[in-house]
């Protein structure tokens, strides 16, 4: 399910000049798939300047790691943002998952060619393409990905049919 403030997160990241690619369920919604998702997943660009902007934004918005059994509300650090993992955060605007890599060999620069900028709305947003999202989820093969794939594939099928 889309978090009630996913739009606010995306707008705020844009206004902070943070370079990112929207992936995951919210990307699927924007691309036309009738899916639901709770959090916003992004792949951020790992240049020093962008990491600085992103870390500053996160600290401003009270970000902390959602997964901590001790519930210490630990803030993210620059090292994690510059790494290879997935960082699952809670912010004052909602849940935000930072994916340093979608998978092996799939950082921001490497997936940039399979993105599209949606600029018909209140702010432009770079989103992974539907075919690439399908490929990523098919490769991941987790139960939640397998659940979503028929909807994503049917959406791509509809788009291809409408193009004739």
């Amino acid at each position: 399910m889309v978090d009630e403030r996913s739009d606010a997160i995306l707008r705020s990241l844009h206004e902070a000049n943070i370079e990112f690619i929207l992936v995951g369920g919210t990307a699927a919604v924007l691309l036309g798939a009738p899916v639901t998702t709770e959090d916003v997943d992004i792949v951020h660009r790992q240049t020093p300047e962008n990491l600085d902007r992103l870390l500053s934004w996160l600290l401003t918005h009270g970000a902390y790691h959602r997964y901590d059994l001790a519930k210490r509300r630990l803030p993210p650090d620059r090292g994690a943002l510059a790494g290879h993992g997935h960082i699952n955060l809670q912010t004052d605007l909602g849940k935000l998952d930072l994916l340093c890599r979608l998978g092996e060999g799939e950082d921001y620069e490497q997936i940039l060619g399979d993105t599209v900028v949606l600029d018909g709305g209140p702010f432009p947003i770079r989103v992974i393409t539907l075919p690439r999202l399908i490929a990523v989820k098919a490769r991941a093969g987790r139960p939640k990905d397998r659940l979503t794939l028929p909807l994503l594939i049917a959406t791509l099928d509809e788009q291809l049919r409408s193009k004739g």
Partner: protein
Amino acid sequence: MGSPSYDEATLAAYFQPPDVAIFDDAVAGAELRRLAIEDPDILAAVADVDRTQIRDSLERTPFDRLRIASERWNGLVRLRRGG
């Protein structure tokens, strides 16, 4: 479960397997061809997707899709909270 109240021809317009052209997609094609062999249930499930949901969605702008999805979620949250 009961059976649909529509004839086969009508249902076929709204519940369809993917067109074979999708397997030639330059980016997703290879993974879809692999799924066809290794995980065919996923592709079989495409025929159970109600295409009216997708067609309605594709008629909207991307941000309208996001707004509607958010409103739907907010409504569910309110229901869950009991008002």
